[in-house]
């Protein structure tokens, strides 16, 4: 008897689907972009947005809190008065923290999205998932105008997380409600 793999592939060939017409990409591949549009779109998801010129001054509010940071966090972000939690951290330690501070790989102005890829200042995926408060630093030059532009800048084989606002659900009467399993507060610091 043929293996499931062989049989499925043979059934597909037997279906004799004719070749398709070439794909016409007539849609926009860019957009107006910019910090202002990005900030506006992030805020639409009921995330907190600050447009600032300097990270440390924006971190004042974290005083007295226990905040997770990725291993390669820039030293100037580690302001005094905050209990910084460094890796290695257990699932329980992440769960009991007050928040997490990271950078990002790319952001998307059109949709108000930030994308993490586990690269510089981001850490592994669990870091931005278990703490209830995620602060994400976005540099102006990281903001792509559109979804196509953002995908072009990303390396698909890295573990990617696209984040658009705080955790939410539309499962009760199809209305969006914020705050389910992921971080219930998303705070984005845009550095210009």
């Amino acid at each position, binding site marked *: 008897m043929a293996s*499931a*793999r062989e*049989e*499925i*592939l043979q*059934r*597909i060939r037997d*279906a004799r*689907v*004719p*070749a*398709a*017409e*070439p*794909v*016409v*990409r007539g*849609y*926009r*591949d860019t957009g107006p972009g910019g910090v202002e549009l990005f900030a506006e*779109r992030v805020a639409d*998801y009921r995330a907190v947005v600050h447009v600032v010129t300097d990270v440390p001054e924006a971190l004042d509010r974290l005083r007295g809190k226990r905040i997770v940071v990725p291993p390669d966090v820039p030293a100037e972000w580690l302001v005094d008065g905050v209990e910084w939690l460094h890796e290695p951290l257990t*699932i329980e330690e992440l*769960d009991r923290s007050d928040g997490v501070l990271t950078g990002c790989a790319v952001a*998307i102005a059109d*949709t*108000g*999205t930030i994308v993490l890829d586990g690269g510089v200042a981001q850490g*592994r*995926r*669990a870091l931005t*998932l278990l703490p209830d408060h995620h602060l994400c630093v976005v540099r102006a030059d990281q903001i792509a105008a559109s*979804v*196509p532009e953002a*995908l072009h800048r990303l390396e*698909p*084989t890295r*573990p*990617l*997380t*696209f*984040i*658009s*606002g705080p*955790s*939410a*659900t*539309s*499962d*009760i*009467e*199809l*209305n*969006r*409600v*914020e*705050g*389910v*399993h*992921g971080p219930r507060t998303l705070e984005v610091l845009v550095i210009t």
Partner: protein
Amino acid sequence: MARNPVTWLGSPTFPKAAHKALADTQLRQNLRKATGTIRGRRAAAVAEMTDWEQLRVAGEQIKNDVLARLDTLLVQLEESVTARGGVVHWARDAEEANRIVLDLCREEQATEVVKVKSMATAEIGLNEALEAGGVHAVETDLAELIVQLGDDRPSHILVPAIHRNRSEIREIFQRRMGVEVSDEPADLAEAARVHLREKFLTTKVAISGANFAVADTGSIVVLESEGNGRMCLTLPDTLITVMGIEKLVPSWQDLEVFLQLLPRSSTAERMNPYTSVWTGVTPGDGPQRFHLVLIDNGRTATLRDSVGRQALRCIRCSACLNVCPVYERTGGQSYGSVYPGPIGAILTPQLVGDMRDPQAASLPYASSLCGACFEVCPVRIDIPSVLTHLRAEAVEAKGRTAESVAMAAAAWMFKEASRYEKAQRAGALARFLARDGRITSLPWPGSRWTSSRDAPAPPSESFRAWWRRNRG
């Protein structure tokens, strides 16, 4: 061959189920409210996009290309996933897929697994199969959880508990979680968070579906809202993803089309809160064992039908359900399948693959052919055309029936003018059954018409007779 669990065992035909559902005023009220809300929001989200039509055309073309090159692309996907440390399994049908997943759970010695909402696993009845094998599957999507805790069946592709309003959800949560909770959606969401937190942190095996798989990179994509997906895709040691063979896109660039089409079509958002992309195994981040189970379960049979195969372009957004006047009134459970609504009416019977099955054969009739579903479909599936095509197949499969005998008799009668006139004179006798020009109840076989609608009384004299009398 075992029956395809895509339809629920013992489900009545659509007209019978719809008849019952229509009498449920609470259900109709819940659905009117929910679908009304989402229709308005979707229209606004789409209106923002000046290039929506171009995106739809590209979405259609990319998916057509996938169907045309499916064998090559699947082999390519297998190679790229394997190269990145994943293991690929193939399953001809539901039974085979369920056995593969159960064996994998047993290898991990798991008695409990967490699940991300997935249509593919609902279609194959995975939870029931796992339960029978001693593995309990915990649904973590809020709506799936509501269905699971309520011992209910899903009624919508995206929001399986759409038929429940907030106070019904509250009642289910209080009964099954043993907690006091208000009917505020935010409180209900909080209750689900608390209920599942411990499971996420301790369960070693997760099962997911996939929205897309990128053939040339081996990347798998899951879109979600709550973060339950991220929990399942990140925290456990082992991840098992079950995916229909048609869920492919050829290249990473193709995702730029679908990441724009899907969120706006399904939840009417510019972007859903979370999208996860992973490729095989990443050392030090996420599950260190990854299995991808590719399922056929009726898809290759659907692929053979040149008209019907376009149903395989579906990206499960559920926009067609939300605009369908039939769905809004009958609800999803009347379709007797995990795939309800217009897409279900064309996908379910094709996956079942047997038009002699009266329940499956009744589904293509669950439509007024108004065409709203095609208008909103992000991959331009011409659902009305497939519906009429499948109706023809249903008629053919039926063979000689009362209806076909009546049609043959009608053909004989229309052939000769004299026979036709005699029939008209005989028909005029039915006037004696009419009240106010309507006939509300005819004897059999006419009763099959008048059980659901009135028939107009025939005129006392036919046009031909009148013409002969006045002008002849």
